């Protein structure tokens, strides 16, 4: 296996940056990490591939992302107000495809949430389609495949 360590380092840095923004509620900056057509997807069915024609837990285009962030920030949502902190660990980053315009990567995530004094853990595979823009990337698609997407989840008032 030949690996492009420079690209891997760039992608890992981007994923770590995005994770840090979300854990520290830097939502406005997070919004700027997307292409206008980008889709943030949390599938309910882990076997699904045609997300648009499947029911997901979330499938956010740019409008829905803006509204989701507004909901978390505007103080009107009782569940968003009572959300504690999240700490997510991103690792096992692997480049699946390295094109001139688009890079596809996959990694493991464990997100821990403290809510009403209780620790809840969300293990997931996360898949990124990253478009090269200038020296960096913009997200064209992010798919968060929760290990227990199929089960009965607690309600979520943060962004995976």
């Amino acid at each position, binding site marked *: 296996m030949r690996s492009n360590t420079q690209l891997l380092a760039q992608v890992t840095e981007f994923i770590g940056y995005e994770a840090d923004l979300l854990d520290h509620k830097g939502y406005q900056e997070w919004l700027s990490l997307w292409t206008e057509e980008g889709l943030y997807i949390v599938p309910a069915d882990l076997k699904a591939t045609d997300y648009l024609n499947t029911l997901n837990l979330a499938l956010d285009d740019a409008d829905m992302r803006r509204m989701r962030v507004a909901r978390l920030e505007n103080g009107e949502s009782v569940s968003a107000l009572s959300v504690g902190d999240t700490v997510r660990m991103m690792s096992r980053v692997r480049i699946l495809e390295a094109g001139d315009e688009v890079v596809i990567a996959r990694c493991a995530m464990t997100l821990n949430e403290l809510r009403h004094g209780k620790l809840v853990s969300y293990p997931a595979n996360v898949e990124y389609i990253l478009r090269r823009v200038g020296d960096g990337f913009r997200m064209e698609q992010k798919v968060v495949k929760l290990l227990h997407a199929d089960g009965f989840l607690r*309600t979520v008032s943060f962004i995976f």
Partner: protein
Amino acid sequence: MTIRRTRPLANEENKNMSALIELQNISLKAAELVEEGRVHKSLYSDPAIFEEELDLVFNNTWVFVGHESEVPEAGSFKTAYIGRQPVILSRDRKMNLHVLQNRCRHRGATVCEARKGKTKAFTCPYHGWGYGLDGSLRALPKPEEYAGVFDTSEMPLESLRVETYQGMVFATFKNDIEPLEDFLGAARKWIDLFMKQGGGYPVKVLGEHRFNFPGNWKIQLENTTDAYHFPIVHKSFVTSLDEATADIFDFLDGEGFVEDLGNGHSAMVMIPQLVDLEADLDQPIPPRFEALAQELRDEGRPEDEVRKLVRAAHGTGFNLNLFPNVSCSMAFFRVLRPVSVGETEIQHVALGGEGAPAPFNRKRMRLHEHFQGPMGFGTPDDGEAWERVQKGSMAGTDGWILVNRGMNNLHDSADGNVAGAVCSETGMRGAYRQYKKLMAAGQEK
């Protein structure tokens, strides 16, 4: 002495009179804790009452187990629960529906763990007993040891009574209660209206969201007939809507109402202009649905079909609460399952049209994702409120939950039922009346 329990006691050897009387008193106590207009807070947290509810409510009435579109073909099945009991909804080769206890007759293992699928048989993983889609025991390894012990025809998966209405499948353990259609009664009219949201196509399950909350099942039962909370709890959802849609959801001062349909069922009409989705098809297309309308026109759909589909895409303007476990809630089925006295699992089942245009079903799924499920803009706030109810109801040794809103402002509905204002607690009172009836009947057994 005529005391008889439908549920065997944990230890048959100790089935003495004092244990029986104690259980009898619990159901009596629960019934007495429901008054017209208030219920005692211990109904949310007393584990002994919860155990009685499983028996006297869930094992004792019609319980929703699924929609026919979830088992569309011969061999289709899905697993479900009635209270705490696992069951399988299956369709046999002759297309008949069955609801079977998911328990091997040999040593009790579940014979099916998949959520849904297609199969020719249910085979127990423990000793290989194989059952047909109708529950009959078809084959077992080394049957000769049972020669003279029993005949395989005596050992099918236990089958429940099953009846359907408008594709909704209900089952019950009771052979002596009224037919489903009688139990639904005045609710049938509302189910008929609800099923118009396929837009001219049969209603079909498109998928479901699943979540749980740390609270009692009755908190969720109340919520589906509670319009009062909507502008408070769902303010952030309403803010996320365009102005015209936000106006539609500003319904507390409108002409809506809550109608008590009997047997614990109720209809809460929030948006009267969306009660009949096949009426008023000449209304202008709202901005929220303009893109969908254009997509449908681009597919070559005639304008009358476009209008019918767009109006159906809204979902209905009412919640129909069916006691004890399902609601036809605007555009989806809400199904609850009691797990323990302080934990409830909920499914939000998304609906569309069988064979309907793909843009229509896509829009229905996007609208469902917007509000429903663990990541919607509505459900997490509901969940937070319910969790607070469970937690707060523990304060004090005595206390009551009020469901008396609008009690002195009732009128007769068009169908001659008792009705109150849209934000009245008329539906909750109806549900608790049925609850009280079932729990009180427990002591007579």
